[in-house]
């Protein structure tokens, strides 16, 4: 790790700590909740506990996501709250798990699943979960055509987060650049519908209405009947699908 960007000295563990001091400092980081406790907390939040080692990767991701330095504010008219029908099941399944997990509730597995069994199989939030629970089928939607690795998915989320952050901060042009890079890199990406929906919104905000409408029309044709298609049509000023 590099020296932190402030006026404090290098961290002890990275500079002149003795062997004994390193041992003590290292031990402090060994203090962690048990796997069962982590699983209970994750279950209550409707998320999945990652495999060991993912935390480090995720921490690295945070730095990657910081590609946009803009401060996020809530976008009141964003398309973002709308999701495609393909992921509605995931959202609903997560929401029904929102009750706080009982501490002494029996845990069927060391790592609790993120959601209770959904009525139809849906993609797990991260690919790590796929690796841990191979019996969970990926939804038979067009999103499942591409084989997605954990790194891919994290990268995709970073793209979408960054675009959304840029959009929230009024950086529609920046958001558009990020979204186009995402769509180039992941032509069959897991968040392609959301990326295109955001692209429509960005184009409208930039005053490029003809492009936005053309894109929206294609999107609506491909996703006819979905909530996201209706929202895209609304943003682009199309007749409701």
């Amino acid at each position: 790790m590099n020296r932190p960007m402030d006026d404090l000295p290098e961290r002890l563990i990275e500079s002149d700590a003795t062997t004994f001091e390193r041992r003590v400092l290292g031990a402090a980081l060994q203090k962690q909740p048990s796997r069962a406790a982590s699983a209970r907390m994750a279950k209550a939040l409707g998320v999945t506990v990652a495999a060991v080692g993912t935390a480090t990767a995720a921490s690295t991701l945070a730095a990657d996501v910081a590609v946009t330095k803009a401060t996020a504010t809530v976008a009141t008219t964003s398309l973002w709250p709308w999701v495609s029908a393909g992921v509605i099941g995931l959202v609903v399944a997560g929401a029904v798990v929102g009750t706080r997990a009982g501490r002494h509730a029996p845990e069927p597995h060391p790592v609790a699943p993120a959601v209770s069994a959904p009525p139809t199989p849906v993609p797990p939030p991260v690919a790590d979960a796929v690796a841990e629970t191979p019996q969970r089928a990926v939804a038979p939607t067009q999103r499942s055509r591409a084989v997605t690795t954990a790194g891919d998915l994290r990268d995709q989320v970073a793209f979408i987060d960054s675009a959304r952050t840029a959009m929230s901060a009024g950086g529609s042009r920046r958001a558009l650049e990020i979204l186009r890079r995402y769509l180039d890199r992941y032509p069959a990406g897991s968040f392609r519908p959301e990326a295109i929906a955001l692209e429509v919104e960005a184009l409208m905000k930039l005053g490029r209405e003809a492009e936005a409408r053309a894109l929206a029309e294609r999107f609506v044709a491909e996703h006819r009947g979905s909530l996201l298609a209706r929202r895209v049509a609304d943003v682009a000023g199309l007749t409701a699908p």
Partner: protein
Amino acid sequence: MAAPAQRIPATAVDRVRLERIFNAHHATVWRALRRRGLSAEAAEDATQETFLLAAERLDDIRPESEKAFLIATALRVAHTLGRKTVRWELDEDMDQRLSTNRDASDKRADTQLCDLVLSKVDADLVEVFVLYELEGLTSPEIAELLQIPLGSVASRLRRAREQFRSAAARVETSLKKEGES
């Protein structure tokens, strides 16, 4: 306060982000709460509450400040539970157990060593020390989080280091003496 089910993020990507930050930082949040003297069970509940609060404000959390946001939220949660000061917990018989369980390969012994050394650092200094040296926060983040001036962060860290290194040296010397006897 809304029920937990209503506080879960409404979009799939938000939930993926929540999952990512949970996996990256929940142990850090839990440790921060334990340092405030919460029991393991209370820290678990407070960690959960911290992430529920974060879930409600995901849009406001800058990606580069996720850890600092979570720790700040955790400290506010701890504050509402009446834990306003840091207390590095040390079992009463720690010194005695240490002398009979100090195998270098024994993680438990190392954890006990850590508790023993950090318990010797003043309560008003240890939080700055841990946040900087172990959790990797920057001084502006610590200043904002603890509501103290930047200069105070630097001075507390300097004094905390002196106390930490002094305590570590004493404990190490003590262990060596016991090993020779």
